[in-house]
């Protein structure tokens, strides 16, 4: 009977994951979908605790410890999730993803050390689970550190080469462990753990910021696969379906993101993105940018008919979404038609800007996607680029030697005037020079985005 309850709960859990993911992909049902998946998860977990029996028929023991661990995790996880700022969301997702990866890796270690079985199937699953889980853990931690500004990029083609060799080495190690288990013996699990952790770190290290969302999404699907391998280990249906579902959905999501940037996935992982820097950046030495004062910028906007704001990560780091909304409302009161032009990969994650602006109460209809906004560009009087760079770089359209050539961009250079708000003349996150800044119709407005927008708002108030 208890086995029946367990399996029914798992079935319910699996269905809730499928429906939950389906509902998450439509704006109206997204929230319910999330809650449904959470409910399914809770039922599956509780059923495991109370009804799971191992092959010898023993129920789950060590209940006090289990509840203590779940209690601790719930409190800490809830606090972290509630406290995090919307701008720091990508880091948080990456962090939680790493936790799941670590969990999967630990399961493999414990299973390997406490069941010295040398069956091929078991070994394949345990080794792969450990490897994928560890890579996902250490990779996510580095991604977290990079997005949080704690770790800097370390780009070098030699490192990429080394990584590819290291990956082959790990796979060779797994092969040895499977086909001649006695050659290395039990320490293999620890060796594998260490090299996988190192690989995870080095794998994310050279990947540039523009590609970070792709990496997080990829690591997310890795953890899904690691969870599914755990499901295989225990013949556990809900772990298997949940893990594989996330693994394949995550992979598709990763591919969709790559398509938005018009770059094949393999070039994000194995290729070198920053490689073309020297060539692309060589010409900006002699060129001069023109700046604009806050007052002039305010006047330009106030007397425009149509203004488009292009937000980027600079807006997020400066926490300027609320000020930006104030600015847009002020202009609206003056009869200016203001819209936001959102590039699919603006920010650090696809959809990141939408989340941020939604937090600042910007109405939905004002958020236009790239395809809608580009045809309007020639009739737009002023485009204000707030802390975005690569997504408005004309090099993506007209410079075949540029690393981002072919990526669809918001064609701000077709608008009548362009104001670029930036902290400094630094290159964008992808490390590519931007010819937009040197165009005749472009004016630069240097400073912190929130500061500058605040000043613009007070200028507008006086007019």
């Amino acid at each position, binding site marked *: 009977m208890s086995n029946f309850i367990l399996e029914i709960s798992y079935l319910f859990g699996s269905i809730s994951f499928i429906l939950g993911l389906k509902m998450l*992909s439509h704006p109206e049902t997204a929230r319910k979908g*999330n809650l449904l*998946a959470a409910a399914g998860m809770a039922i599956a977990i509780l059923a495991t605790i109370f009804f799971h029996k191992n092959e010898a028929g023993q129920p789950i023991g060590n209940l006090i410890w289990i509840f203590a661990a779940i209690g601790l995790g719930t409190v800490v996880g809830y606090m972290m999730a509630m406290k995090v700022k919307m701008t720091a969301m990508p880091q948080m997702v990456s962090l*939680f993803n790493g936790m799941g990866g670590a969990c999967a890796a630990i399961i493999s270690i414990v299973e390997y*050390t*406490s069941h010295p079985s040398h069956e091929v199937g078991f070994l394949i699953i345990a080794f792969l689970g450990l490897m994928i889980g560890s890579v996902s853990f250490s990779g996510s931690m580095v991604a977290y550190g990079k997005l949080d500004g704690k770790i800097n990029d370390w780009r070098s083609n030699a490192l990429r080469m080394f990584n590819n060799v290291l990956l082959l080495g790990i796979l060779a190690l797994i092969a040895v462990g499977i086909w001649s288990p006695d050659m290395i013996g039990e320490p293999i699990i620890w060796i594998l753990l260490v090299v996988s952790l190192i690989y995870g770190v080095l794998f994310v290290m050279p990947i540039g910021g523009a590609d970070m969302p792709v990496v997080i999404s990829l690591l997310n699907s890795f953890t899904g696969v690691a969870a599914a391998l755990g499901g295989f280990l225990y013949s556990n249906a809900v772990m298997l379906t949940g893990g594989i579902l996330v693994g394949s959905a995550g992979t598709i999501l990763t591919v969709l993101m790559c398509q938005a940037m018009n770059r094949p996935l393999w070039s994000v992982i194995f290729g070198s993105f920053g490689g073309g820097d020297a060539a692309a950046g060589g010409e900006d030495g002699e060129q001069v940018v023109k700046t604009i004062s806050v007052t002039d910028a305010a006047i330009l906007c106030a007397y425009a008919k149509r203004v488009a704001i292009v937000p980027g990560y600079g807006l997020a780091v400066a926490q300027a979404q609320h000020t930006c909304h104030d600015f847009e409302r002020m202009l609206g009161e003056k009869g200016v038609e203001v819209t936001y032009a959102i590039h699919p990969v603006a920010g650090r994650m696809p959809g990141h800007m939408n989340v941020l602006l939604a937090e600042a109460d910007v109405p939905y209809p004002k958020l236009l996607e790239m395809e809608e906004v580009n045809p309007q560009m020639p009739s737009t009087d002023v485009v204000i680029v707030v802390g975005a760079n690569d997504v408005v770089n004309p090099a993506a359209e007209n410079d075949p030697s540029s690393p981002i050539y072919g990526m669809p961009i918001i064609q701000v250079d077709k608008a009548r005037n362009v104001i670029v708000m930036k902290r400094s003349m630094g290159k964008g996150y992808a490390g590519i020079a931007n010819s937009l800044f040197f165009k005749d119709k472009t004016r630069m407005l240097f400073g912190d985005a929130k500061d500058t927008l605040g000043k613009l708002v007070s200028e507008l108030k006086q007019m």
Partner: protein
Amino acid sequence: MEELFNFFITNKEFIYVIILSIFLGVEVISNVPAILHTPLMSGANAIHGVVIIGAIIVMGHASPDNILAIGLGFVAVVLGTLNVVGGFVVTNRMLEMFKKKKK
């Protein structure tokens, strides 16, 4: 090699489940609007927290004198819970903001 064949035969139901789940995952995700990419990734992130069930099983069947299994199992359950709880709460917070606008 033979072992591998046996492994395949004994686990063929699971292999079917895996293949079908892969297609299902692809189907479920395609046509998602770009605005929902971040919440969707976050939601999927919470779902793979299902790995916690494995951690519970490890811990629940470890004999009390196996300190390695108990200790690692405890850490695994904590991490898995973080993944599940944090993941769902963060996703809910993101989606909450979308909902507010529609009124």
